[in-house]
């Protein structure tokens, strides 16, 4: 009995450890190659944007921005009204994010902690709307927007994007994780249901709200399909739309100028990536778990 156990504990680890050292090296090598393929194009974009426009298509390519040259960045400000694009994108994205956080917090709280007739059915309808692709509803939404005279305005992008099924779902899950006894205690202290929400539950739900906000920001900052349809004049374009039209207007001669615009448009997303990556990952995968 003891001999068998001894043999198992002494021989087995040695064999697996030797094997593991070798396999770890192979795995790291494969993963490193994969990350080069993922990050390489982004690094090329950054380094090319930092080279004079005449050297845009230099081969072999440079992946690291040595000797940075800012000509393309001054050019992009001249050739593209990038300030207006940034302001438009920031306005649209910011207002949608704030609007989604507010409405999703209210609705999520109602679905989690308030009792009313038809709650289950209504929540099922909210969930079901998540399955309908936006491209299917875009034609009637476009006509509605046009009918109320909002076509080719930023409001046409903002208002329809505020009600959020996914955000409501996320906030309901979040509020359900908070105990109902809190409402009881608040009521004993004489707080109205609104006060209970405002001063007890909403502050505790801030992490959940942050996820809703970050997701909304990431999605709408990068959005292309709706702005392409809803806006006509260049003064109402958002960043992705402006950059695509810049690429169409310029020949292949000034690639680095277009890429400078692309890099500038990435900065806010990078900030979110650095400070809210975890929240973003949690939000994207929320609702997919068992």
């Amino acid at each position, binding site marked *: 009995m003891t001999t068998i156990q001894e043999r198992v504990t002494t021989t087995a680890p040695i064999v*697996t450890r030797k094997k*593991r050292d070798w*396999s770890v090296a192979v*795995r790291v090598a*494969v*993963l490193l190659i994969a*990350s080069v393929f*993922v990050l390489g*194009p*982004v690094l*090329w974009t950054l380094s*090319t944007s930092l080279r004079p426009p005449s050297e*845009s*298509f230099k081969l*072999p*390519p440079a992946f690291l921005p040595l000797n940075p040259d800012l000509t393309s960045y001054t050019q992009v400000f001249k050739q593209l009204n990038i300030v207006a694009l940034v302001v438009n994108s920031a306005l649209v994205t910011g207002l949608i994010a704030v609007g989604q956080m507010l409405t*999703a917090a*209210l609705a999520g709280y109602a679905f*989690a*902690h*308030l*009792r*009313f007739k038809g*709650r289950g059915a*209504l929540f099922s309808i909210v969930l079901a*709307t998540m*399955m309908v*692709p936006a*491209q*299917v509803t*875009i*034609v*009637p*939404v476009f*006509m*509605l927007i046009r009918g109320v005279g909002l076509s080719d305005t930023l409001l046409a992008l903002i208002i329809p994007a505020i*009600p959020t099924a996914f955000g409501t779902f996320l906030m309901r899950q979040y509020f*359900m994780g908070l*105990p*109902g006894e809190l*409402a*009881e205690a608040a009521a*004993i202290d004489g707080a109205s*249901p609104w006060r209970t*929400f405002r001063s007890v539950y909403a502050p505790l739900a801030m992490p959940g709200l942050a996820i809703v906000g970050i997701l909304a920001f990431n999605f709408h900052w*990068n959005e*292309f399909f709706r702005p392409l349809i809803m806006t006509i004049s260049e003064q109402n374009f958002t*960043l992705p*739309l402006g*950059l695509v039209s810049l690429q169409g207007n310029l020949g292949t001669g000034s690639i680095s100028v*277009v*890429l400078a615009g692309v890099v500038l*448009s*990435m900065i806010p*997303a990078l900030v*979110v*990536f650095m400070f809210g990556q975890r929240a973003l990952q949690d939000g*994207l*995968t929320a609702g997919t778990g*068992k």
Partner: protein
Amino acid sequence: MSTATSTPTGTGSEPGRKPAHKGGTTSKRGRVQQRWLPWAFLAPTIVGMGIFTLLPIVASIALAFFRWDIISAPTFVGFDNFAEVVQDPTVRVSFLNTIVFVVVAVALQLGLALGLAIMVQEKLPAWLRVFFRSAFFFPLILSAASVSIFMRYLFNEQFGVVNWMLSLVGIPAVPWLTTPGGSAAVVILVYVWQNFGFSFLLFIGGLASIPVETYEAASIDGATGFRKHFYVTLPLLSPTTLVASVMAIINALQVFDQPYVLTRGGPGDSTRTAVMVIFESAFQRLEFGQASAIGVILTLIIMAITAAQFRLSKRFVFYQ
């Protein structure tokens, strides 16, 4: 889930009833407030979704039976839009393109994501794991339009980095964006490049939920390396695989940004997709009825695939 919902509301309604002992006015006020209050909380979302989601769904279905160019009054045409759309060669090619795209892109995306997730999740220094996770997730924060802009330069036939790299290993320049096959390949590669990180995240989560003891038991039984993953990881991961594949397929069916920016659907119709055809017939040819008909068909396909996947899953998915 039902117990979780009933507990907080069950206790929450009690304090509303208790003050009845204190006086009639407060209890009446409390009860009135209780009745309309939930609707005040819900109103922005419910009204908004009614106007911008539910109404458009109904309108979209109705519109599919009308001919309407916005300028003149709509005329009822029955199933004409559907008949025309089904016979339209461009629409047919676009749906076929979309199906080929979905099959290839989703297979690549899931295969890549699963392989890399298994490699990242096994024994690895913590900082390396964090680095790889961040690296593979990174493209998801970029806009598909921006990605397509720089990828178009990278796949340039004469000056692009991709062909330069191929030339290093002796492969002659590939006409990526000027041939049907090349264009389709670029759209798929760019799409997978940007989206595999999402499936990767799902698989990482799924792998983390497989108990270590299962692997220990398997290795005692002599399963190692590939066999271990084939007989232990894959079956135990199947719920995650189902979710990941449903989401990947639904997203891929709606592909638009990449082909629009990379190729505008060309050359010819070789990279035109279902959503591009909706966009073009509505906003370029002003055939809103036809656009709606195509949209209804696409939605039905999405719903059918989702239902089929969940039915199939009953046979193949292994729940612990």
